């Protein structure tokens, strides 16, 4: 395995806009760790291509600013957890990564998200195409009630055009297996997705997102509507999927972040209630030895 990896992506030449800050000055306050050190601790991706770099990202809902100058590296083929109290902008941040933020009426973004050396907010990038590469799983399971389980899984795939019936079946099985749902639904693929339990529905949504073979998967509090057992299954699944896709998971549950993620970012809404990144680092470090006082207060439960 190559240990240098994703650092290279940030210095890639080409059409990526030059990043104004050097990696070491990226964060205000005491930065947890330079990415170089972290790579020796956590498993690294086999190729750096699926990593994301967020550069000075700010987001607004109409006149109200929700995020300010977020700069953050998401290494490829790892799980990055984003934690923080509610209202800190973590959901907004994750929605900016596949440009779902701008779907909200009046929402705007400034800054860059670099994937594979390319700024996703460049005018030449089609957000529709981007979303096929960066998939998303939402807070509440949202299977399409008018479609069967089978059709739910291939809903994204069908958009792409001609896929043969045979390979379609194959993709459905594989996606459901990857989402650890196959054994439970193999006999009722033609039934509606709404007949499943909440946890199963969420895994169906994960299968649906995986079917289009995304490079990265964004999960916006995927377990907040689920019971503890269903939550554990999803967490297991996340750990399994890490080898295949880059995962960014937003969670308000610190134990969950500690259980599933390789790296953790802590966000907090400062004055004016604008979300900012406080600290990022290897998960174990963040939870055992945070550099920022506010992070420590939060993880020890003193506020939030």
């Amino acid at each position: 395995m190559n240990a240098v990896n994703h650092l290279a992506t940030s210095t890639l030449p080409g059409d990526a806009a030059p990043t104004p800050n050097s990696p070491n000055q990226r964060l205000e306050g005491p930065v947890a760790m330079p990415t170089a050190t972290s790579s020796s601790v956590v498993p690294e991706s086999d190729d750096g291509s699926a990593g994301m770099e967020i550069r000075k990202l700010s987001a607004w809902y109409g006149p109200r600013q929700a995020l300010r100058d977020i700069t953050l590296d998401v290494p490829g083929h790892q799980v990055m957890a984003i934690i923080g109290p509610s209202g800190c902008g973590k959901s907004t941040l994750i929605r900016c990564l596949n440009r779902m933020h701008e779907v909200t009426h009046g929402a705007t973004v400034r800054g860059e998200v670099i994937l594979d050396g390319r700024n996703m907010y460049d005018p030449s990038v089609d957000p529709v195409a981007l979303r096929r590469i960066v998939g998303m799983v939402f807070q509440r399971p949202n299977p399409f009630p008018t479609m069967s389980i089978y059709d739910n899984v291939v809903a994204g795939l069908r958009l792409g055009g001609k896929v043969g019936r045979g390979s379609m079946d194959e993709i459905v099985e594989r996606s459901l297996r990857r989402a650890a749902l196959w054994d439970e639904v193999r006999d009722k693929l033609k039934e509606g997705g709404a007949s499943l339990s909440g946890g199963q529905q969420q895994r169906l949504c994960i299968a649906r997102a995986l079917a289009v073979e995304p490079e990265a998967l964004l999960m916006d509090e995927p377990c907040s509507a689920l019971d503890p057992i269903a939550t554990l299954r999803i967490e297991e699944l996340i750990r399994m999927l890490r080898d295949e896709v880059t995962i960014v998971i937003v969670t308000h549950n610190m134990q969950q972040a500690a259980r599933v993620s390789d790296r953790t970012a802590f966000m907090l809404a400062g004055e004016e209630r604008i979300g900012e990144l406080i600290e990022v680092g290897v998960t174990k470090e963040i939870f055992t030895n945070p550099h920022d006082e506010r992070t420590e207060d939060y993880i020890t439960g003193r506020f939030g």
Partner: protein
Amino acid sequence: MATQTISLGKRASSIERELSSIDRRRRIMDLTMRGLCSLAALLGAGALFLLVIHVVVNGVAALSIPLFTEMPAPIGTPGGGMAHAFVGSIIIVGLACLWGIPAGLLAGIYLADYQTPRLGGFVRFTADVLTGIPSIVFGIFGYILVVTRFGGFSGLAAAFTLGVITLPIVARTTEETLRLVPHELREAALALGVRRWRVVLSIVLPTARAGLITGAMLALARAAGETAPLIFTTLGNNFWNVDPTRPMAAVTLTIFQYAIWPYKNLHEQAWAASLILLLVVLLINLTVRLAARSAPSR
């Protein structure tokens, strides 16, 4: 790895290419369909626009004082007016609303505040069936029930029939409106020892006043625009008549007759009368909507 079988070629190298754009066919489809939807909305709004323009242009050209003050000239000769029709319409619609709206209001109070589930459900069902029936069927009903039994065609028969049309409409809108009045308001008054009927009349109804007036006005506009039931009940009349027990003229009926007669000056009068009718109906709808929007609807 098993998962690599199908995702071949997707990784790394092709991301760059994929990002630039999706399938061109999909992009064109998206733009086309969005364009067509916008066009559809334009067509719908445009239809009203065209209609109003035509009525206004033709109507204003033919508008004159004698239209409101004079009786029809002998057929084929120019001039004349339709004073009798305006008066007839006012009397018929007035009488219809005089019984249809209050009765509908009371029925709505029953449905919202007094109903027992089974009887209320039945009343609601029959009211819904009535609102879905073509107005010509009401005309036949008025003809059979009133005209053939009580002294022939008359303004009263028309007023009865139009009332039957407005009754279920007012009842249902009243019910919907009263249901929006917070329950606590009724309870608070009842708790003070106010009798139930007083609570309804002096607290619930005034609270829902705006909505009730809206419903009544819309019913009035609907009654004023009806034509088909009049054919079977009041028949029409070419002479001055303010006695509702005899056949009466009405604006809508007269427009209908004039339109299909081959006389140019009658066509002109039909346009002018249409303009007046359109103004009345649109003004009622307009004010009601603007009032509904500005009122704090909760």
